[in-house]
């Protein structure tokens, strides 16, 4: 057992922290209020290498491990979860999916600019009628010989308007059910693609979420990822790895709220003493610290397993479910510790609380994670 980080991992953590504390903090409240996409930050983070962190240098990525990724995302999400989700979708869904499953030409054409962060990507699985149950894809991709004809609607798509590259799941052989689903790389500016309005969200408001409509969109055959019918398996394997990203995001949100609550508890006085000296406040902070430590260990363990090419099905689900659930608890308590100040925007904790909620919903709800975990308990 070795709990030490390498010099490089610490350097990446520090770089992410410096960027978040120096730059993101400056306009996070304003962007959140206006639901404004953080274009400048995405460009800067791309230049620093954070958008293709784990892609191998051969495809213009930084070639870092998943442990570094957890540390970096935690630092970013501590300050700005919207930026963290943009980073997470690009790294652990889009880039990871292409690096692992795309063919050489697809990697040259699409992965390289994504890894450099020159363009960003989106992952289109959910539909109005297919969220937790993604096996029932209503979007269809009809095989027309040398191209597929794509029709249907995708819902809740992160990066939908800012991305240039879409990875889209759609049904080709309805009779084969989930084994008939395919995954495609689709250029966003292909004719026939239209976006719904920017969703007016409770939190992570500066990440752009839209529904995406496909109407007779022609997708070249060479843009299918893997064998015919590989799409559902592809999506599940990618989401499995993606959970480490959302778990780390949740961990960051919790840590950000905890650090603010801890500092505030040592400044705010009530009944003649700093509120930290009231045991029920100190014990809240103690509980928060234990939960965060647990979540962090689960995230790092899942990342370590991934780096060592071991299965992360269960570890990733545990990390995602636990980190998301404690993020909700910790941020709620952080608001409580701030009293009335916690309920207004300047103190950040109410925003962190709104952000935490989403981590329990997307990339598999907490309930879905529990299905994965509980099934594994009785599997040989």
């Amino acid at each position, binding site marked *: 057992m070795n709990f030490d980080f390498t*010099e*490089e991992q*610490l*350097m*990446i953590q*520090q*770089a992410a922290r*410096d*960027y978040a504390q*120096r730059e993101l903090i400056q306009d996070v409240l304003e962007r959140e209020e206006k639901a404004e996409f953080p274009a400048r930050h995405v460009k800067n983070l791309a*230049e*620093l*290498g*954070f958008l293709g*962190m784990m892609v191998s*240098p051969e495809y213009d990525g*930084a*070639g*870092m491990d998943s442990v570094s990724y957890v540390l970096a995302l935690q630092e970013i999400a501590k300050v700005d979860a919207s930026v963290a989700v943009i980073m997470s979708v690009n790294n652990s869904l889009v880039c990871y999916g292409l690096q692992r499953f795309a063919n050489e030409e697809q990697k040259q054409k699409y992965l390289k600019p994504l890894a450099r962060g020159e363009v960003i990507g989106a992952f289109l699985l959910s539909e109005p009628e297919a969220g937790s149950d993604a096996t029932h894809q209503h979007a269809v991709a009809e095989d027309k010989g040398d191209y597929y004809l794509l029709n249907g609607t995708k819902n809740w798509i992160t990066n939908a308007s800012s991305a240039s590259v879409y990875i889209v799941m759609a049904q080709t052989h309805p009779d084969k059910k989930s084994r008939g689903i395919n995954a495609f790389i689709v250029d966003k500016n292909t004719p026939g693609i239209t976006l719904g309005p920017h969703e007016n969200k409770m939190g992570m408001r500066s990440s752009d979420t839209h529904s995406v409509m496909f109407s007779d969109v022609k997708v070249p055959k060479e843009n299918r990822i893997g064998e015919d019918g590989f799409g559902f398996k592809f999506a599940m394997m990618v989401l499995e790895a993606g959970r480490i990203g959302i778990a780390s995001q949740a961990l960051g949100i919790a840590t950000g709220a905890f650090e603010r609550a801890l500092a505030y508890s040592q400044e705010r*006085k009530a009944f003649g003493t700093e509120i930290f000296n009231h045991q029920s406040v100190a014990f809240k902070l103690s509980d928060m610290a234990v939960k965060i430590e647990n979540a962090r260990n689960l995230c790092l363990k899942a990342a370590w397993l991934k780096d060592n090419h071991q299965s992360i099905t269960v570890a990733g689900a545990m990390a995602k479910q636990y980190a998301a659930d404690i993020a909700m608890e910790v941020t709620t308590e952080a608001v409580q510790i701030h009293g009335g100040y916690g309920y207004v925007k300047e103190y950040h904790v109410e925003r962190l609380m709104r952000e935490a909620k989403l981590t329990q919903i997307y990339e598999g709800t907490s309930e879905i994670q529990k299905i994965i975990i509980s099934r594994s308990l009785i599997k040989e």
Partner: protein
Amino acid sequence: MKILVLISNVPDTTTKIRFTGDNKSFDTNGVQWIINPWDELALTRAMELKEAGAFETITVANVGTQITESTLRKALAVGADEAIRVDAVPQDAFFVASQLAKVAEGYDVILAGIEASDYNGAGVGGMLAELLGINSVSAVSGLEIENGALKVHRDIDGGSQVLSVPTPVVLIVQKGIAIEPRIPAMRGIMMARKKPLNVIAPVDAESKTEFLGFELPAPKAACKMVEEDNAKELIRLLHEEAKVL
């Protein structure tokens, strides 16, 4: 032209400062180390000048034990090309300057921070120039290089001064030399692995000072809020409690 940037390894500015039992030495347990902020700015300016073609390579040097290597590695990740560590416990400014004098020969421009944020000694740069027998300029807040000629900006009381100085020279730099330190990019962090970090043995040098003891500053008094329309109370507090009026 060759440039050397001196790098001091200091505790992160948010470190909780504690001293060991006899109050004679700083307790380094659990301390996070960073590049001295002034040195980091010096390195940033060196990088900008290198990018403009004034230098081919940037060398950084530090006197310290192995714990300083991650700080040097960070300087390499930010963009220095090679690092030198003189393997010794830095004792005082004279000791450190004596060690650096051995590695600083042959450089045209040597950048030293105006002070280190740990002991605020502000002595190394000047002593190093003296030991090398070359010029030094203090309180440098700007450096330009055109066709190999140095134009140095200094802050002086109520204004600034622009000098032209011959090389070799030690420039003791302060705020203003660069705007903001750079965050190392992932590519830099990867490349830092492969850049040389040479460890060299120290030379004999005596330290000229002895630390007798440290004291922490008095704890900060709590902040008092005064209602915005109550100037009278503010004046009373300033007069009777803060005693500044």
